[in-house]
């Protein structure tokens, strides 16, 4: 019995110290001077983290927009409110689905890749040799990746939203026969740029920071064996996904909680 309690205590202390390490890690990585050719390093990471996630984001956005229109139409038509399809698709995407789903996809694709890459660098002692040569790996390896993730996810979110709305248009207007004018004009009337679009972008900025932070930290902190790498990669996807969903609730409550 006491053995279990002690184990629980140890686990709590371990978790707390790991969160503390993660926090210090973030602060040290963000507030450090960029290394020479820092812009180039960032650019490279923008490619690996952002550009290479575009395909999955576009395809998913398209399908989600199309399904939203399909499902939404069947429900709205029973209220005679099918003209509201445009605003339904746009609001769902812009406020919730684009930031959240893009972040989840990002965590799975880019997040796990980041963890694995940094973990492999740790396991093959590249990070150690970098330190021995006198270069701080936080500056050269971690910081560019953090900034790339922070900038990429909002862009991916916007692309997701745009493609989703277009997908909704394809299904709603071209296929199901909603009047083209009302799809767009109802949408324009009800979607507010600052309250809806910008709030969605703010969400994606927060998600970008949190997901990339988790991914990079898990890679940096892991036990440098192949088992350690695979466990850390799984942890990145799980923790990042849960964090996104949890933060989404908090942000939504803050942003949209007192509307209407």
């Amino acid at each position, binding site marked *: 019995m006491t053995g279990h309690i002690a184990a629980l205590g140890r686990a709590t202390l371990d978790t707390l110290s790991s969160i503390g390490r993660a926090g210090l890690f973030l602060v040290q990585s963000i507030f450090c001077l960029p290394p020479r050719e820092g812009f180039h390093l960032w650019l490279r990471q923008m490619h690996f983290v952002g550009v290479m996630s575009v395909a999955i984001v576009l395809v998913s956005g398209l399908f989600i927009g199309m399904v939203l229109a399909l499902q939404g139409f069947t429900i709205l038509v029973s209220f005679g409110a099918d003209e509201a399809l445009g605003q339904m698709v746009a609001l769902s995407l*812009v406020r919730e689905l684009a930031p959240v789903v893009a972040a989840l996809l990002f965590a799975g694709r880019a997040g796990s890749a980041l963890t694995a890459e940094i973990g492999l660098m740790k396991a093959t002692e590249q990070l150690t040799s970098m330190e021995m040569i006198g270069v701080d790996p936080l500056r050269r390896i971690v910081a560019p990746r953090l900034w790339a993730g922070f900038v990429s996810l909002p862009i991916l979110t916007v692309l997701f939203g745009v493609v989703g709305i277009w997908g909704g248009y394809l299904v709603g207007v071209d296929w199901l026969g909603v009047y083209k004018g009302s799809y767009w004009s109802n949408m324009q009337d009800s979607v507010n740029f600052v309250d809806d679009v910008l709030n969605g972008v703010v969400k994606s900025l927060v998600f970008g920071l949190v997901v990339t932070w988790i991914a990079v930290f898990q890679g940096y902190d892991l036990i440098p064996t192949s088992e350690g790498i695979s466990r850390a990669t799984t942890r990145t996807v799980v923790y990042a996904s849960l964090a996104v969903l949890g933060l989404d609730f908090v942000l939504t409550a803050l942003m949209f909680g007192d509307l209407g």
Partner: protein
Amino acid sequence: MKRNKFLELGVGIFMLAGILGLVFLGLRVSGLGVGMPNDTFTLSANFANIGGLRPQAKVTMSGVRIGEVTDIQLDPKWFDAKVTMQLDSKYDGKLSNDTTAAILTSGLLGEQYIGLTVGGAPDMLRDGDVIHDTQQALVLEELIQKFVSNMAK
């Protein structure tokens, strides 16, 4: 290095796509561009009940958008709702001073907006004037109550 050129190009296109996407979301999706013109004049109106009217709701005449609601406050003198709106200044001095303002609902359960209807009076409304003839929002519960009490009779 050739690899770098493609990389830079790719990232540049990526970022540009993001910005364009945001512009699209601004203009086509949220109707940002269809915002207020620079020159506006202000009118106000008091309503017994504003229902679900919110600031930034549109103000229309014959269905055409001519302005938006900028402020809704409780009037301390009359204890009703004072709604301030800004209209495109090309209508300054063109609306008769017996123009009515009604709170209408778009669709059955949609959001509420203000619809103006001109009257026939010779004098015109100017910047800062008050619209006197107003029709409050239809509140569903009051409607149902009226219906039920009519049925009971």
